[in-house]
């Protein structure tokens, strides 16, 4: 039959491919919309009906990086000549720049907290994963279950006592507090995912090395670790993205100085009128690393989202 209907089949297949393209297009429209809004002028961003084609400008991007106030009188030509390019852009929007906004420091906070917590989670996770993979442990499945169950806790449920604990220890709004909580959030994941990767490394390699006189630790350090570099890279990117995207814990535990980007971006509603160009610019800048990482990770996504249970 296959031979007879092959022409029909081909047409059908093409139709399906076309449908896939349409679906992909629809799924991507929201992302395009937010990215394009960051380059719209204020008036284009709130026009009815919405503007699809427009002259791109940097106003929104400059706005998210600056604190501004309303321009009460137009700047003198001399002053205008002295102004930087971004100040001119803001003058054109009827405002003037006062100083830089908190956005760069919020991004920096996000980077510091996510990188450090990822590194710690990865380190502890790899060690634990190795032990769980290679050694006999009493009640191993129960321990693994316990570790994974920590990942299932709803943030809103644990946050009340954590808030109180942090308050007592003076960890609210501190880098160490945020790093600790993000490490705890990612550790179960790191253990499970790394265990999957370590399981795949043939145990014979270490055995051979140990026969050659390596200690157990040397075997782990010199044989197993280099073998699991891919796994560690994938795990750390996953941990990083999870921490990067986290919102609820940061909302409560990092209210100000070490606030990360996710709670900051919605707070850029503008002073008198919601300015979607600035919010969109902030969101877009924030999403760029995630998009890059998604492409880097594409081979490991399935494994990641199932805690290493399904490998492909």
């Amino acid at each position: 039959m296959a031979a007879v209907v092959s022409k029909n089949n081909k047409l059908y297949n093409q139709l399906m491919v076309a449908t896939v393209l349409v679906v992909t297009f629809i799924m991507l429209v929201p992302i395009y919309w937010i990215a394009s809004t960051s380059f719209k002028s204020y008036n284009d961003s709130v026009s009815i009906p919405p503007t699809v084609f427009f002259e791109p400008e940097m106003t929104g991007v400059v706005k998210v990086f600056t604190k501004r106030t309303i321009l009460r009188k137009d700047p003198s030509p001399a002053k205008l000549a002295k102004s930087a390019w971004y100040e001119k852009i803001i003058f054109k929007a009827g405002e003037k720049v006062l100083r830089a906004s908190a956005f760069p420091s919020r991004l920096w906070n996000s980077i510091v907290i996510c990188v450090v917590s990822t590194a710690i989670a990865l380190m502890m996770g790899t060690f634990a994963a190795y032990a769980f993979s290679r050694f006999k442990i009493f009640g191993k499945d129960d321990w693994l279950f316990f570790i994974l169950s920590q990942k299932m806790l709803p943030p809103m449920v644990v946050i009340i006592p954590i808030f109180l604990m942090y308050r007592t220890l003076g960890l609210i709004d501190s880098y160490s507090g945020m790093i600790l909580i993000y490490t705890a959030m990612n550790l179960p994941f790191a253990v499970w995912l790394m265990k999957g990767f370590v399981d795949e490394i043939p145990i014979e390699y270490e055995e051979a090395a140990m026969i050659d006189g390596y200690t157990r630790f040397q075997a782990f350090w010199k044989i197993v670790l280099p073998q699991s570099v891919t796994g560690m890279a994938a795990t750390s990117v996953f941990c990083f993205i999870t921490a990067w995207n986290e919102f609820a814990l940061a909302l409560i535990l990092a209210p100000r100085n070490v606030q990360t980007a996710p709670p900051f971006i919605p707070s850029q509603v503008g002073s008198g009128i919601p300015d979607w160009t600035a919010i969109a610019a902030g969101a877009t800048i924030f999403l760029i690393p995630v998009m890059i990482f998604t492409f880097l990770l594409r081979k490991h996504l399935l494994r990641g989202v199932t805690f290493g249970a399904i490998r492909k």
Partner: protein
Amino acid sequence: MAVGVHKEATNSQPGLARTGLSDLSIRNLFIIPTIAFLACMNIFPLIWSLFLSFHEWRANLPDEKAVYVGIQHYRDILNDPAFWQTFSLTAQYVLYAVVGELVVGFGVALLLNREMKAKGVITTLLLLPMMMSPAVVGLFWKLLWNPGWGIVNPIFGLANDYAWLSDANRALWAVVITDIWMWAPFVMLLSLAGLSAIPKHLYEAAEIDRASWWFTFRNITLPLVTPLLLIAIIFRTMENFKQFDMIFTMTGGGPGTSTEVHSIRLYRMAFQSWDTGKSSAFAYILLIMVIGISMIYIKYLNKIKER
């Protein structure tokens, strides 16, 4: 689907020269920090809040003494119709969202499960939404749902006064649709894994028997993909049950309480009304529910792994 081989080293291998740490101490050194750390960060605070849930105490007045009230808070919450309303709202949201994600995700996976150019790129593009921050997704969908300058109404040919987020009956649907946009790719990813693992010869045999499309789908495709779909369902159920970020930035629970799922209600109780004792009790009720769902999930995950 390749399932990992699981092998264990026997602890003592006589005859091996070993000068470093013993296996036992390495094992302890590697595992105990992780377990201890998690216990400190999660178990200990939970014991604290269990204690608080039996007391009347406000975290914004830390110097006042906690008053023991027994199970009063639990009784109040379970007898409060508002709680059950929140609960039923959350259940509705979870149900609609998960069903929607399943239908869309599995559907797209069926479409994608064929030879085509740039399949890898397209799949990755489709997966982008689920990697994003739910809070930021909620925020920018708020723009998309705006009846005037948002993009949803023009796309579906609706008038520019067809409100979504400020309409008590439609807000939940807007939240559900956003959730489907974000998480259908997750179901798609799992379904694709299942679909691509189905041996080709089964389809060929069906074709020789001139089996109908529906017959093939029901008797070959579905049974073989079901285990993975179940994982997807349980996982999404649990995650949606915990949902806070996306709804919080999109509607804040409004209008009225029409999208106030229990995480948001809990947030308001705990950090706006500062009713710490009662919200601890509320948190415990949720915790028990989540433990229930996650038990099923982990059991199932283990079962899949063993196959």
